[in-house]
């Protein structure tokens, strides 16, 4: 089966007028993924075609890109599952562009850092926590814990585009997993960030992040849970 891959190209020195699209003819089978096609182009047609990937299997989240207008992971996106014989591939939105499909992920990590993404234990916490499999705390955290840091939610979020102080879906989701964890001792500091003007209050609940998350996480649910926790804390009811 023949398909056409329309790939966004950009090299800082060469493309003064910004990005352009280049078309590549690719042979595909029923199982060929977008990543397979990109790797094939890189090996045989143009060794300079720049994109990130690592694990090839949906573990690492390196190959996030916008495929036919929607954020997807190239390694798990089969060309046959997309409509039409032309597949358009461009880099993630809301990140500075480096080359072709490679963006600068620094803003993603910076947003993570604003919420304090590490767990901090109280000095007198028990050495090892006995945790029930059935506790509500664990269930809620488990629903939000599998983030692989791919950046697709940030690319899809309209609020991130308007407000660079807004931590965005991935960071707020991460914050929830820590605020909900009774082993963490840094919640006060995190609340002061989360309850500032540009954090929890800025999510409008459109749910674009949920639509595109490859791990099927729902950052708005985490954000709602954080709001509920904040309200309880304000009212002094736990």
């Amino acid at each position: 089966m023949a398909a056409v891959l329309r790939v966004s190209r950009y090299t800082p020195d060469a493309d003064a007028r910004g990005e352009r699209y280049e078309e590549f003819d690719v042979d595909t089978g029923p199982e060929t993924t977008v990543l397979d096609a990109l790797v094939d182009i890189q090996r045989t047609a143009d060794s300079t075609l720049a994109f990130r990937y690592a694990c090839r299997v949906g573990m690492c989240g390196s190959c996030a890109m916008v495929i036919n207008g929607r954020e997807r992971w190239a390694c798990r996106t089969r060309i046959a599952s997309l409509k039409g014989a032309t597949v358009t591939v461009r880099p993630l939105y809301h990140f500075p562009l480096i080359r072709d499909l490679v963006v600068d992920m620094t803003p993603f990590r910076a947003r993570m850092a604003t919420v304090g993404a590490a767990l901090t234990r109280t000095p007198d916490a028990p050495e090892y926590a006995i945790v029930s499999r059935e506790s509500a705390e664990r269930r809620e955290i488990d629903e939000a814990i599998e983030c692989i840091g791919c950046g697709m939610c940030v690319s899809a979020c309209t609020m991130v585009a308007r407000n660079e102080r807004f931590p965005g879906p991935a960071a707020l989701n991460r914050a929830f997993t820590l605020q909900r964890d009774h082993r963490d001792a840094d919640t006060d500091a995190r609340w002061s960030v989360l309850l500032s003007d540009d954090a929890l209050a800025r999510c409008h609940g459109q749910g674009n992040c949920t639509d595109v998350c490859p791990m099927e996480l729902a950052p708005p649910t985490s954000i709602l849970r954080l709001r509920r926790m904040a309200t309880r804390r304000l009212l002094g009811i736990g």
Partner: protein
Amino acid sequence: MATVQYETHEHDVIVIGAGGAGLRAAIEAAAQGVSVGLVCKSLLGKAHTVMAEGGIAAALGNVWPEDNWQVHFRDTMKGGRMVNNWRMAQLHAQEAPERVLELERWGALFDRTKDGLISQRDFGGHRYARLAHVGDRTGLEMIRTLQYHGIHQGIDVYMECKIERLTKDGDRVSGAFGYWRNSGEFVLFKAKAVVLATGGIGKAWKITSNSWEYTGDGQSLALWAGADLIDMEFVQFHPTHMVWPPSVAGLLVTEGVRGDGGTLKNKQGERFMFNHIPDLYKGETADNIEEAERWYTDKKNNRRTPDLLPRDIVARAIRAEVKAGRGSPHGGVFLDIASRRPADYIRKRLPSMYHQFKELADVDITKEPMEVGPAQHYVMGGVRVDADSTAATVPGLFAAGEAAGGMHGSNRLGGNSLSDLLVFGRRAGLHAALYAKNLGGRLNVDAGHVQAIARETLEPFNRTAGENPYAIQADLQDTMQNLVGIIRTEEELKEALKKIEALKARARKVGGGGGRTYNPGWHTALDLKSLLTVAECCAMAALERKESRGGHTREDHPYSDDTWGTVNVVLSQRDGVTSLRREPLPKMPDELKALLQERT
């Protein structure tokens, strides 16, 4: 020729590689109060550790109170066919439980037993259920925890930076020189101590579970700097990977599938592993289906199923079945968990496997068997290190994780990798920091040497009509796949070395173009140098060892030979020429020898 410009950073300790071992090393060095820089080739959090699925082996004794470090030590030595560095195996077994608990203190949370303790699962070659795990995404939880903890500690991280060569001041390592993948600009890291935690060499083979990053960087950097490598002939071909469709061939199928009840069958539906139990394991392995079936529900009174024999044995068995014409349609065998476990259980315990097969192969593993076969997965050999300090044979150089050799002997048990990363990552960070603290004064970097490396790095751009680097890489992968695979012969190894020599000549004339900004063609051209270096080391050592043991099987020397069981093959390089020699294994103390005799 114009002088090449570069930026300079200075730290007490530089760690190269940010998987489990590198992150753990950086955390430990920072905790010692020295300045630490962590350099990695991809983005932080994307290193190969993230792919580790099954779990981390540690004798916590949560599921089996009978388990302890002595049994774990015995299993590890036995799995490695007794050529492991005994002291590394001992430290590993003793310290792994504390490293797991420490991860929990830093925020990880492993799956729990019904009593709320860390749950442990069965894996090949481990006497007791021993692998602490987070579903089948243990590596992700581990990397995330270490990454956030490390950042919180204030470690400087230099991402998407590739180190081309180490620098030296006299005999001592004094830094590392490389380039930013993003910009192609050069960077020098001056350091008193360098920790290599760069992982493995899998990209030298065609069918491998390893990512593009695994090009033998650390092993090569060490060799070029004058350090020894050991055990490079021992390469693990993990038995179960996807074999179909072609684009996903080589993707790992976790041993956890078998640990959780999956069994191997040939095309006649026969549980063929019963025909492949070696003498060494006869005492503890069920030799009939009835006993193996009883073992799943009564592990105390029955012997383990042979589906959970060590990886080298299972990989050879699968290869033999396929060769005898009893394989699956796409050249593998069947792995069946659907007929033993309910769909809910499979989805809960093996979520990644479920999605991987569903999305990439249209196979529902809760209903039908998987088709699996062996692929290159791990190298047991690597930089020769001192067991306690992880110091390489060049002062100021340390190595941990897959980049280091010795710990696993001739074959690694599943789950012993994640624990290795943490135990020896911590030791590398600790001893690199102590070494740096004790070293007075400053070290020099030879500016002329740096200029020479920089010029060499830019050479592909001078050859716009040169050969495509991917073509050379593909030919190397074919060579290693066909001639230095699971089963080896003298004739084929000699042919491989000849071909590698020719590939080296082609690599010296590799072409480039397209500028220095994030240019994957250029990066691949540069990685060829290390990839060819480790491929040559592997083939040379494999030719030297005239016996079969663990991850090294010679068709022309099919049995293990006791005299070979007492030596390591050691490789070193002087003036660009690689040579090898045999050296006796470190002598094991009697009290540890006694542990190996015990029937557990």
